[in-house]
């Protein structure tokens, strides 16, 4: 339990002051995702263009892990190539948090990632047609 949730300053900081929090008016993609076991909810908005994420915002209601991971994710993917982001693995997201999570809480950490990937896949399939 050395790298526990209790001792993660990164998570604390992002929870207290989440980055990119808010809405985008007329977004290119948006989604609402819920974790049914705990009721955590995230609404995420994307501005997309030139194969990149131009802007990302979200409104999250949830636990420390889910809010902090949304914040960290938004910082990591902002301005990045969509193709590159789609190559990211769940393990990458979890490693950004810098803590070991049990399987039950992985869902909290991956809520924002799942939302993001769903939107990007939808966007890719629409623009490739």
């Amino acid at each position, binding site marked *: *339990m050395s790298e*526990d*949730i*209790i001792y993660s300053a990164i998570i604390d900081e992002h929870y*207290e002051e*989440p980055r990119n*929090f*808010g809405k985008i008016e007329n977004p290119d993609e948006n989604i609402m995702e819920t974790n049914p*076991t*705990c*009721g*955590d909810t995230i609404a995420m908005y994307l501005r997309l263009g030139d194969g990149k994420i131009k802007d990302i915002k979200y*409104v*999250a*209601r*949830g*636990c*420390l*892990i889910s*809010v902090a991971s949304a914040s960290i994710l938004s910082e990591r993917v902002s301005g990045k190539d969509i193709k590159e982001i789609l190559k990211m693995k769940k393990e990458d997201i979890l490693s950004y948090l810098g803590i070991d999570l049990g399987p039950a*809480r992985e869902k*909290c950490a991956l809520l924002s990632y799942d939302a993001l990937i769903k939107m990007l896949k939808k966007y890719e399939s629409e623009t490739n047609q």
Partner: protein
Amino acid sequence: MFDPVEIRKHFPIYERFQRENIVYLDNAATTQKPKEVIDAIVNYYENSNSNVHRGVYRIGEEATDLYNKSRENIAGFTGGKPEGTIFVRNATEALNLAANSLTRMIGKKFEVLVSRMEHHSNIVPWQIASDTFGIRLKMMESNIDRPLSWGDIERNITKDTRIVSLTHVSNLLGTINDLREIGKNLHERGIYFIVDAAQSVPHMPVNFRDLNCDLMAFSGHKMLGPSGIGVLQGTPEILEDMPPYMGGGEMIKEVFEDHFIAADIPEKFEAGTPNIEGAIGLSAAVNFLKNLRMESIRQHEKDLIAYTLEKEDELNIPSLISYGPRDPEVRGGIYSFNMRKNVESERPFGNEVHPHDISHLADRIEGVEVRSGHHCAMPQTVSLGVYATARASFYIYNTREDVDHLFDAIEKIGKRMIK
């Protein structure tokens, strides 16, 4: 003398709990299993395993005898008759059976009344019955700090009400509803009465006949028994009139090309090979509980919840908010709570500590295992103005010391999360 520390010696898992300093407080979700229950199941598989109601050979007869005796034992434990004691998977399946079969028995449009206090398993089956058979489901408001009374029910029944289905003890608030008077009055009006006893049968003396109900549901795993076995108890009269729920082997007398003749109760409602070891395990659990005496178990849990509420008052932690009746006389061993900042924060979303964080931190800081979420009671949770709570729930092996650990955890979480 009721001694939880002595009781723990019967539970193999407590060796691990002691080694790792785990304080298990999630008994409303499921309870731990004593050696007596585990042994009964192992013994059945090692010595008597075979299918029931079939072979006229030695161990087949033995298995059937064990299964039937288990039914008799469990039926008697809650004051019901063996033929009125149907084995199902759990209270959820019992309530699904009741909703489906009773609705078809009545056979016309009517209204069913439930309360906001219900577990999803006493809401969703009625919603399905409503979608399938066109009956009307009415959910009445219930007070969060006092039990349901006959007056509450009386105000909400109409000329169309044919069924009232209520929980005996709220799994979220711990409220103990006095159902006897409600049952008596409903019967006088010819309204069927169903009781969800999943949170009462394990914790206090419950007598099916005293409740004046027609059907009652409970789960084995919440009362020291194995998972996958539960009971729908009913009066033989109503069960004989109710049509079968699932079809298949065991539940028939004869099958023809285009129709079947159902078996007598209770087999009529037990399609397929039953959970034989589940029934045997649950019977062993019932023996264990009878040995401790249900009055003593209730007394012990009343002491624990009274101590919890006293301690809460005494510590007066500003961020702590809890729900449910304050009078231990009408409160089971269930303590649901939240933690929130006492001033509005600048943060763009809520100022509560998420119950998931409470549950996770309580485990990591103090080894205290509490559940978080809506506890399968979303309508009640929403009425508290929150989307989730943390919940501690007690049983026979918990002590006042466990409650102290809970509050140590709450205080430490407060310091950690609320700045």
